[in-house]
């Protein structure tokens, strides 16, 4: 189980990668293609190169049309700032461009994308809207300590979240005597908070879990959850009495984790408006006119009447 979890590490939204293989260009489970735009130029790195920009719920992918191995994958988590400014493009001259400032592993990258189709703000609207949606849904993907998770003794649910189980009497084993608290098991994450202090809490999305196992500790048999390295690399121990209940909780978390892994919920919700249908779908085929005009002017001469008169 350890290894299975490790390989599936989520990198798509964290990293900025260049010239990735085709396998990494594909959508990972739970990743959705939100918009794709042809005729986009990577004005900074590949000026003069026409390419395609794809916006998913996790990242922005750009690849060259002529050489698909020239590509970029920019995760939304690495984005610091997105702005629109004027840039100099070889294909279009001075034009409004999308500036994306990112930071990955303490290195900053700036990307400039230009839409080669004039007067179409779709590039800006799509990227900005998805980035905003990503920013506001960090709770789906990030481990959080001491967050404002609980209000009025209940969990503040995320929009797509459903609580599957609430387990009372869960001891957090971070301190010597332990803290009694409550588990909330949802379809997105696992939340624990102390009974006596609501700010004493932790929220671990399944995507950030490295291992879930049952281990012996000085407090006896305990549920151990390890988080990924970039999520702090925490080892959290919980004790639930009796052991049967612990196993039950363990099983539940495990099965939910598997479901989640197959179809992760990243929380980015979107609604596509006014998407233009492809040209071949809206093209109305020209039909040959098969109507035949028959001419039967038996006595249709208008002058006949007047002459007879």
């Amino acid at each position: 189980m350890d290894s299975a979890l490790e390989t599936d590490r989520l990198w798509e939204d964290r990293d900025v990668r260049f010239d990735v293989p085709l396998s990494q260009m594909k959508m990972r489970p739970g990743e959705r293609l939100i918009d794709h735009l042809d005729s986009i130029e990577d004005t900074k790195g590949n000026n003069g190169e026409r390419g395609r920009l794809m916006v998913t719920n996790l990242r922005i992918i750009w690849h060259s049309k002529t050489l698909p191995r020239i590509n970029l994958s920019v995760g939304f988590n690495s984005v610091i700032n997105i702005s629109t400014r004027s840039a100099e493009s070889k294909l279009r001259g001075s034009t409004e461009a999308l500036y994306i400032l990112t930071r990955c592993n303490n290195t900053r990258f700036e990307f400039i994308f230009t839409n080669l189709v004039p007067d179409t703000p779709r590039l800006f609207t799509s990227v900005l809207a998805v980035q905003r949606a990503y920013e506001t849904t960090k709770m789906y993907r990030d481990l959080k300590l001491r967050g404002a998770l609980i209000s009025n003794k209940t969990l503040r649910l995320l929009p797509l979240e459903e609580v599957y189980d609430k387990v009372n009497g869960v001891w957090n084993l971070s301190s010597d005597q332990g803290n009694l608290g409550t588990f909330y098991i949802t379809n997105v994450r696992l939340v624990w908070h102390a009974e006596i202090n609501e700010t004493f809490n932790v929220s671990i999305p399944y995507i950030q879990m490295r291992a879930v196992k049952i281990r012996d500790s000085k407090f006896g048999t305990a549920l151990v959850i390890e988080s990924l390295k970039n999520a702090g690399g925490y080892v959290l121990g919980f004790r639930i009495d009796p052991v049967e209940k612990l196993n039950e909780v363990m099983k539940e978390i495990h099965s939910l984790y598997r479901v989640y892994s197959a179809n992760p919920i990243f929380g980015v919700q979107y609604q596509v408006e006014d998407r233009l249908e492809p040209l071949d779908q809206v093209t109305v085929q020209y039909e040959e006119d098969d109507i035949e005009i028959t001419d039967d002017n038996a006595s249709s001469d208008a002058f006949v009447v007047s002459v007879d008169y």
Partner: protein
Amino acid sequence: MSLFKSREWWYTHAGAEEEYDTCNLCVGNVDNSPDKLEKIVVGSLQGILRIYCPRTKGGNHEDMLLEYQTDSPILGLDIGRLVGDSGLYLAILHPRKVTVCSVSVDTTTKDTGTFYNISQIYSHKLERTACNMCLGSFGSIKNKDFICVQSMDGMMSFYEQDSFAFARFLPQFLIPGPLCYVPSTDTFITSSSSNFVEAYRYQTLAVSTESESKDQIKTGAGKRLRVDWKTNIGDNVVDIKIFSGADDNATTIFVLGEHNLFALRENGVIRFMKKFDFNPSCFYPYGSLVEGTVNMLVANHSRTCYVWQDTTLAWSSSFQHVPVNIRILTVGSLKGHIVTLDETGKIYVSYLGTDPSLQTAAPVERREINYDEKDQEMAKLQQVIRECTKPIEHAPKITDQPDFSIFVEPVNGLDVVGVKHEESDTEYPTVTVKINLRCSSKISLDKVTLTVAPEVPFYATQRSVVLTNVGSGPTSLATFSLYNTGQRVASDLTVPLVAHYTNNHSSPRSVHNSIHLPLQLVCSAACPEKSAAHKITIETNKPAMNLLELFSEMNCESEGGQNGCVAFKTVSGEVITLLAAKNSQKYRIQSNSFIALYIIIQQFLMKLRRHFEKIGGTQPLSVTFPGPVPLQEYFDIIDSRFELRLRQRSYREMLSQRAQQFRAIQRRLLTRFKDKTPSPLQNMDTLLEGTYQQILALADADLQTTKALEEADHALSTATKLMLLLVKLWCPNLDDKQATVLQSCLTPDVNSSDDVGWEEMVDASITMLLRTCLAKTTKEQSVGAASLKLPSDTTKLKKHIALLLERLNKGGTLSLNTYADKVSHRNKDQIESGS
């Protein structure tokens, strides 16, 4: 735009979709931790309070100590000694509430120290919507901080820890400005909407007893306060901050405007000001190492951070964002981190450094320019341009070298069978001339037209011959048959010959040559005559020649010619006798026809010269004419021609008169005939008939005169040629050049068809010569030029010719240069005599 970037040390994003304002950040050891670590406290307008403790570079999940959702928006945050003990507490300003909280490590997790409690110590409900607040030890109280809240409508409420003290309305209030407390003077500093910075003493505020009752506060009926001082800064105030140096006396009030920064003393006097060329967003004063100065961090909307030491710019670097608040943070032992918060909740902890970013994006590949290649291309293009702009030569160059030359084979004697007259069956003397075309270059011409233009009495059987494929084949040959009809005495034995063709460049060309006819064609040997009307004697410096030998081709012996005497008979019948003196070196040419003399004299002189050239000798042949010039004969010819001209003119006048008369009669007759009532013709028809006959007669006469005039023209032309020849022999000084001048004046080119007649023309020319180069007196020079009109008689002309010849004989020179010399010389004389 700054060259340097502020180096990011720690970063977090405090919540998406949240907003932050200028008062929503404070820095301090809010949890009273023993390690004295400074925490960053931010509270958003969405009511979420967060406390961060940056510990390591980059930041991780544990740096957030606390996240707490409050029930209303957070307008301001500050840290102070707000509870009785000396610990620090957090004051949170909400629109209708100000809360003082303690932040502490959760005791239950003390050993791990990772979880924090926030608990409310006390809270005050606000009657009026709050704008901002400030903390301070109001009334110079020790080790305690009180809270002052400014409401949106200008009420200052004072809270002495958990109890409400009092509230006062600020006078002339419109919009709340930033609020600040100066401990050294116990004064509140704010700004009014009229761009004044105002100061109110706490004591003044406190002792205003009028608004003691709560009702009055509610209704806003507070007494007007007196301002301690106010200063006009003429700018909208963004923020006010105070800075106290090491000695508390030197407190400076810094006011950040939208375009300026003011530093005021405690009493409101401006210490200095600084004008900005940017829009500042926030600032923070801090202590300087240089005594007496204050450093300031000023951030602007162009993402730049400036460090000013009083009014001197010390440093500038760019930021990642536009901060709304800027602070200085000490992390552990490391001082001077810059904390910036922007309106979206991004918090940066950065420092002013210059470490270079090692990883830079690779520059876009550019193709290297091959300069040699470019130079070549440039040269090539310029060549093309030059060729295009070159002026096109429409006309090909005319080469001096003609494409071919014409060779005329010398004619030896007359043809055996001559050309015959159409009617009389008389045989004319005829010669056949062979003409060769020799191409000088290897070209071929499609078509060459050879044309001869013989003058009367010579005629050609065929005036032009067309030769094809000249140059490509063997030598092209053409023959012309020329014959003499004997209509008049020939004056010239040369016949011009012209070849026309179109060369390879399609431009028309012509080549000229001339045919020299033999003397046999003009005359034949005859029996010498002893007497003649006209005689001309020529002297030479050589012994007399054997004439038979000289004219060997004429075969004079057969007609009784001797060594010293030969005679020729022209085709038209004139006999010219040529005599050579036996003892002297003289020759005599005599004939009854004056004009017939010319051709013989000319041919004789030519042969003579050629002969002596062939012999050679120490002394060249010189031929002289002793005179007198046969002027009388010449004048007779002029007169007879002039008479003909006059006659022709009178005939033409008469003809025009008669024609006019004829038309008048016709008109009259026509009206008669048209008339409906016929009237007698009154012999008009006879008159018409008579006039008609007259016209016919006149026309005939004119025709005859014209023919006669043509003959006279020829005679005059020949006579003139003879005269020119003789004058040249007669006048010793006349060289070839002068002879040309003379010939152009006394022209042998006589043509009666011209409007201007020969007489007028020659007279004008001679008058000109006499007036200029041949003039003897100044009076002669002033003679007016003759008009080109038909003169009434030829007296004047004859006189002028005689005068000309006389002067020439006496050594006159026909040169306009000498004339010019003369004129200048004379002018000089005049000047000298005048002076």
